[in-house]
């Protein structure tokens, strides 16, 4: 056993080098692959943007509207979407935190608020999409036409924000499942709320991706 102990010191976690459960480790591995996928999408966007830099539309001239407000408000709506997602990340951490303390009622409360945040984000994205598709001066933005500039801009916009939006949607479905499990006492009987933590990892990742999409689509 002393040999294990020496070996363990080098790896900190003893003979379990990562000291993390199977499920959590697999979630992290999935998130690494997803990180590389989104990096490739954004890198491809960058390639096309450099290639067609003379005719590439400026995002803040494309997305300038805000519901129920007249006039031009660049960045305002997407800032609101970012705020909604950061907020839902915070409610998620709180749910995980109360899960560690085995406080079922508070887990239910914060999980529900996280779900509401996710749905609000999806609704905002639907508004943003429909506004973009509606286009400019009667010319719609589609996969093959884009009144604001190079058609590839529209393709990347639909593909990357769509892929991210699908992640948000999947996250909301997962959150609803673990909310039902929490209400049904599944995790109380199991003795821990690690499933909330694992879905939490995924949910924060979705927020993380949005931070990059926000920067590279709307700011840079």
């Amino acid at each position, binding site marked *: 056993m002393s040999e294990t102990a020496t070996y363990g010191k080098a790896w900190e976690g003893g003979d379990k080098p990562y000291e993390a459960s199977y499920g959590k480790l697999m979630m992290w591995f999935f998130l690494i692959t997803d*990180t590389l996928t989104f990096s490739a999408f954004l*890198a491809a966007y960058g390639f096309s943007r450099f290639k067609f830099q003379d005719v590439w539309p400026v995002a803040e001239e494309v997305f300038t509207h805000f519901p129920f407000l007249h006039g031009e408000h660049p*960045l305002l709506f997407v*800032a609101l979407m970012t705020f909604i997602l950061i907020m839902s990340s915070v409610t998620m951490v*709180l749910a995980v935190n109360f899960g560690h303390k085995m406080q079922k009622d508070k887990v239910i409360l914060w999980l529900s608020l996280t779900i509401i945040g996710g749905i609000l984000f999806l609704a905002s994205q639907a508004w943003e999409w429909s506004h973009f598709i509606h286009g400019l001066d009667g010319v719609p933005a589609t996969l093959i036409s884009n009144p604001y500039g190079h058609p590839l801009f529209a393709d990347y916009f639909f593909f990357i924000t769509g892929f991210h939006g699908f992640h948000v949607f999947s996250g909301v479905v997962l959150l609803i499942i673990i909310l039902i499990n929490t209400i049904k006492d599944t995790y109380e009987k199991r003795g821990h709320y690690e499933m909330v933590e694992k879905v*939490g990892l995924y949910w*924060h990742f979705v927020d993380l991706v949005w931070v990059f999409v*926000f*920067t590279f689509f709307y*700011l840079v």
Partner: protein
Amino acid sequence: MSDNQHNGNWWIWKVFWILLGLTTFEVLLGMFKPEFLVNTIFLGTKLLNHIFIILTLIKAGYIVLTFMHLGFEKKSLKWTILLPAFVLVPYLLFIILSEGVHVYSIL
């Protein structure tokens, strides 16, 4: 898992205010576009873009290390997750973006 991280919620709100503050700052910079930052070109792009990217990386760091708890995991796990991203993503960006610049120059 360090236990003092789970006593109280103040650290969650601290990170929230940092993220919100950085995002607000980014949005304000994007709205007002200070002339100096737009006109100064550094390493092939506007100084403003460098600021956006640095702020984004700081935000990403806070999300991954505190919200996703990676800062409090074992060192071995932490680097197993971070190293592939640190090596592969800059590599990918370097190759694809410099190719984009080249294709533009010969079009």
